[in-house]
């Protein structure tokens, strides 16, 4: 799969997790692509942690509003029925359990549902931004990412980078498959037919539990 196909595969599968009426926060990058693949009969509301709900698509070129950006500093729009608020209210929504789901990328994620996505000590320290609150507060935490970092597993028995939150991840979606975080470990519930169980296990440091109902990775 080429890079674009990989990302689309992941975004399409994550989109299927959305239920009608959900309030959702999508992280910068790949997670943002999820919005493009929401089924037509499903209406979700997107939250932008810099201060609004009703996040809409990018404006047409030349129609950018200098006073309206998303959390990635991109010019965006607000849909009818949306509302603006301050950062305090934004994180009351996030921390208070009002988000049905949050979708983020990861540097590492492990079989206990631990997530690391905000720093590599001594190398790269972007900061956690809103990620710690999002992962702590959202009802469902979905990690959407490429399965490995150029071959190096990112899905581990135990994260060794500083955590974003402990034990909060519910679901991991990669181009290879879908893994659910359970008390017993990571349950592989869907597998992309381009890969074998052996291949996905090889690309994964944690031991995968193979679901008895293992099915082909869905895209619609």
């Amino acid at each position, binding site marked *: 799969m080429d890079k674009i196909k990989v990302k689309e595969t992941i975004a399409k599968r994550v989109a299927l997790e959305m239920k009608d009426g959900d309030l959702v926060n999508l992280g910068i990058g790949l997670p943002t692509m999820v919005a493009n693949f929401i089924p037509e009969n499903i209406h979700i509301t997107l939250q932008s942690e810099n201060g609004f709900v009703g996040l809409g698509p990018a404006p047409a070129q030349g129609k950018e509003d200098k006073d309206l950006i998303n959390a990635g500093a991109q010019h965006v729009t607000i849909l009818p029925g949306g509302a603006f608020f301050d950062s305090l209210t934004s994180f009351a929504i996030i921390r208070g359990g009002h988000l049905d789901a949050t979708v983020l990328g990861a540097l590492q994620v492990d079989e206990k549902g631990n997530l690391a996505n905000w720093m590599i000590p001594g190398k790269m320290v972007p*900061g956690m931004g809103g990620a710690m609150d999002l992962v702590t507060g959202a009802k469902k935490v979905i990690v959407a990412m490429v399965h490995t970092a150029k071959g190096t597993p990112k899905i581990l028995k135990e994260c060794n980078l500083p955590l974003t939150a402990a034990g909060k991840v519910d679901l991991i979606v990669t181009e290879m498959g879908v893994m659910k975080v359970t008390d017993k470990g990571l349950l592989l519930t869907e597998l992309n037919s381009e890969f074998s169980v052996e291949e996905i296990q090889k690309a994964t440091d944690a031991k995968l539990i193979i679901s008895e109902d293992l099915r082909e990775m869905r895209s619609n």
Partner: protein
Amino acid sequence: MSKIISKEEFTDKIKDGMTIMIGGFLGNGTPETLIDVIVEKGVKDLTIIANDTAFVEKGIGKLIVNKQVKKVITSHIGTNKETGRQLNAGELEVVLAPQGTLAEQVRAGGAGLGGILTPTGLGTIVEENKQKIVVDGKEYLLETPLRADVALIAGTKVDKLGNAFHTKSTRNFNPLMASAADLVVVEAEEIVEVGEIDPDVVMTLGIFVDFIVRSETNG
């Protein structure tokens, strides 16, 4: 007594070593003119409290690039590579806080609270050196208030008493920071007469604002 002052009068209020809160989110809703004045004056050893350090050529980023900041309390520095460079070189102290926690800390500072209990950061390095408190069987981190000598905020429309309206995503930290500093200066894109902002839609209260400076930037 008008609250409107010139850039020159504003310059005199900023001194070496001050702690300054600056509103904005990645440069959106940030008082660019006030920042430019501080860059020009060249005061040193500032402690900045802000959501992020914006970009090398925009917002708070300019203060970092000009090496006027000794410490920054923020949630994100990833968009400004100079912040990361100064951090790694040991030239700048960076205290990272989750964005929601940072907002609560600023509000606590302005609202007379001794702190708030949040689940965010539990089980991470954010909990280091912090009190953990159990409420109803659940563990929380005690996060303490932040206050500043000065808060610099940006308003879309500001009346002569300092009541401010912040449009769209420019609101972010501005109203909170206005409540949590000894001296509050709002940079106004537009200054209007008292009464021209509907009392229902005032977002930053004029009672918090000491001075108004007319913005010279646009976007």
